[in-house]
């Protein structure tokens, strides 16, 4: 794979080199990653497609500093984060990465805006929580507790919480996995908007090929490898997708 001209012009935000991950559980070793090279370029939206069990989540967790690889390196801009200890990883997560998961993981005892404030209180140059929630279309639901919100709304709160600190990278692991398609599209629209308006480098994991159409680039994943990486000529708006 030769880097495209466009890619050469852009700088790399997050990069993984020769990443492997082996789980030693019971009698057999599970090789979740078998040598992965991946680069996320400044401001792009990447969709990672692949069957279940192929190692997507493992990769994302390692890129996001939630887990460390068995071998290989992860580099965020000029910082090597694989060598870092726990506090380097925490610092990295705190100031540079936003996560969105399949399960929303909101704090039930805090309202939507308080869930967002949780992050803005510890960040350096955060948005106003209301602003972040408006960005995901929830400007009206600031004072609601998670139990008072639908699944799609909760996921959008999670997105608002992830982006309110203006992260450099937004990592989403099957953000629509638990949602119906209509609601899923609302969530994808929120992600798309964040990527476009804030220029946040974004990676979205899914096993839904349709979602690949909204990406700058689609990376196919299989059995712990990057199988292929292709650039879309045009990005389709999330609102136009259907499945």
């Amino acid at each position, binding site marked *: 794979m030769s880097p495209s001209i466009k890619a050469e012009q852009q700088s790399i935000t997050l990069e993984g080199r020769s990443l492997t991950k082996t789980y030693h559980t019971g009698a057999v070793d599970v090789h979740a990653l078998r040598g992965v090279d991946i680069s996320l370029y400044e401001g792009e939206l990447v969709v990672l497609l692949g069957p279940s069990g192929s190692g997507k989540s493992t990769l994302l967790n390692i890129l996001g500093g939630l887990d460390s690889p068995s071998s290989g390196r992860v580099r965020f801009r000029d910082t090597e984060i694989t060598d870092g200890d726990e506090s380097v990883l925490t610092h990295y997560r705190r100031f540079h990465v936003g996560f969105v998961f399949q399960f929303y993981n909101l704090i039930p005892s*805090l309202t939507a805006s*308080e869930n967002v404030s949780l992050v803005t209180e510890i960040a350096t140059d955060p948005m106003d929580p209301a602003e972040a929630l408006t960005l995901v279309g929830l400007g009206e639901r600031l004072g609601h507790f998670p139990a008072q919100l639908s699944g799609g709304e909760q996921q959008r709160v999670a997105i608002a919480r992830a982006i309110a600190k203006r992260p450099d990278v937004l990592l989403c692991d099957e953000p629509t996995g638990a949602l119906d398609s209509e609601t899923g599209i609302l969530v994808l629209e929120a992600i798309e908007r964040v990527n476009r308006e804030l220029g946040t480098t974004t990676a979205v994991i899914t096993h839904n090929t349709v979602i690949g159409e909204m990406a700058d680039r689609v990376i196919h994943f299989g059995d712990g490898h990057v199988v292929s990486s292709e650039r879309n000529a045009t990005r389709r708006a999330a609102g136009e997708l259907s499945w």
Partner: protein
Amino acid sequence: MEVEGAAHRTPWGDPVRALNKKLVRNLWKLRGQVLAIAIVIASGVAVLVMSLSALQALTETTEAYYERQRFGEVFASVKRAPQRLIEQIRTIPGVRSVDHRIKYLATLSIEGFEEPVIGQLVSIPEGAQPKLNQLVLREGRLVSPGHPDEVVLSEPFADAHGMQPGDSFQALMNSNLRTLTVVGVALSPEYVYTIGPGALMPDDHRFGVMWIGREALEAAYDLDGAFNDLSLGLLHGTNPQDVIERLDQLLERYGGTGAIPRAEQISNWFLMNEIEMQKTMSTILPTIFLAVAAFLSNMVLGRLIATDRSEIGLMKAFGYSNRQVGWHYAKLVMAMAGVGIILGWAAGAWLGRVNTEIYAEFYRFPLLIFRPDPGVFAIGAMVSLIAALAGSLGAVRRAANLPPAEAMMPPAPPLYRKTRISGSRFILWLDQPTRIILRQIVRAPFKALFTSIGIACSVAVMIMALQWLDSIEKIVDVFFHDAQRQDMMVGLVETQSDTTLLEFRRMPGVLAAEPMRAASVEFHAGTRTHRGAIEGIPDDPQLQRVYDAGGRVVQLPPEGLLLSTALAEKLNLDIGDRVQVDVLEGRRPKRTIPVVDLYETYIGMTAYMNIDAFNRMMGERGSLEYVTLLVDDSRLPALYKELKALPKVAAVTLKDAAVREFNKTMAETILIYISFFAAFACALGFGVVYNSTRIALSERGRELATLRVLGFHRGEISYILLGEAGLLILVGLPLGVLTGAGLGWFMTSAMDSELYRIPLVIKASTNAIAVLVTLAATLLSAAVVRNRLDHLDLIAVLKTRE
């Protein structure tokens, strides 16, 4: 999961293999908590087993000792009675054997010991054991015929002075200074508690019992063919009171002061008082303790199982019946409780034995019977098991009664609403983690309250145990320091005339001397009676003041009786009532005397009277039996020397020594027992705090992992969990201090006896210790939980659905 086996087997005891595997894995996964719960249960069981087995051993050992050494059942003393009277006494119905002897007090001089020592001389047949109250020879031999200077010493006395067979000392016997040679060292059931005249606690340095040949004592005190003390053995089933009545009639003309049953024999009375106190302690303390432990394990297990509700839903979805699910958790709980019970049994039996040995050594029982009753073990196990099962099965039932689909959902969607507190302006000041803590507590106030109550219980139990030290200190302060001004009390051989007082006032170093009289009496008020003593003291005494425990010196009226409140209560008397007093000494007058005032005292239940009124009642002129002295410390050696040489002196009690002995006795008995309790209370506190925090951790793991993903540091997420625990502890501690005072009050009131009234005193330092120890236990468990938090598996938590 395997479902095979579930459908066609009965739930009871049948191996449902998959579930049993889950059971073992669960136990292993929860091992930290299993151990902490086991410690809580074990503490309750251990305290019960320890206390009751020690009490039982103490009682049985005493009985066996009495039986083996033929401890007398009726005791009497006279001035002097002819031996031919024995024949008549033998014919009293119910009397099995009669042992007559001679008993005298003598002042001793022991080399290297400056203070006067009082010896209780008791006669024994030369070359043989007496019929009753037989000695247990520990060293050497009994006295042999023809050697009037041979003496057998009681072991505690011999040990206190380091004397062995072959050593000798001097005794002032009937005005003759004699040198006695030790030939043996022995123990006697009659002197388990060797208490000197007028003393409260054994003082083995200053008072000792010794046995001398009968002929030697007869010669020394001119009692040829006579005796002055009796001990009777009774036929089985005889009422000692009937024998006493007949005996008193026979002895009256020989100066009998009234026979007493074994129950009132001084050593036995003290011993029984102590056992009685032990009994109260060993029933009340462990009951409270076991109840607290049961409550705590109940609460902890209930919460633990509530966290398992989605698994319960899953099991039911697979077709397990409610019964099978219930039985599965019952087994889990029984396994946990079982570990605790076995630990508790082992610790309790061991400590019970240790405790018994301490007592046996203190009382110097020559034998020790430790056969704990299996019933005690069973009670401890049953109570713990039932409490644990009740707590956990309630939670299982709640989970099992839900439709499986609902049970598998996150536990009742935590619906937070804006409450007055959470919506108020106050909350705007708080950061989000603090809001999480507060909302968590507001949402589940009962759960939070339970943690606080658990902590309060452990603080309370510890205060209840430690409070004893404060109470005892208070007793010493009031009884010995506030009330008594004298340094020394001298007992005289017989009632002496007033002039003796002048003699004492002239002695070296004596700053003040006051007379005192005492007589054994029987009080009658309606149907109530009490056998005790009246003390006669002078007007406006400076040394032996009557001191009310409330902090007031009580004025002694010229006429009438001043009763201790405890005695007034026993006789159901109040100020202004009249009480019949039968004096058991001298001319044995009987009078009806008004009660003119009451005072409160922690030790004993003495009645006071003006000494002049006392003498008039006795029909005697200005006489006394005791002299209380205030002395100049620098002249003590000279004073001791004179006292030793004075034939009238029968006993010398030094206040400082009495305080020392009191403290020592307390330290050797109650305090050891108390320290075991304090240790168990600590274990209890640790178990509770550890479990609540661990459960909170498993309930909140997901939330905390999320925060870590969002970039919160370990310290910051610890704040949420431990901050909540801290807040609950802050509520629990003052609650515990209050409850501790309540339990302490309950304990001390239950301990009232004729010998002691225990005041409730809790020093600030006691509360502080209980609080600090609980805090330390909390910190320790917080550290363990913190360690867990630091190794929180972020990914595993996030992968699963809530």
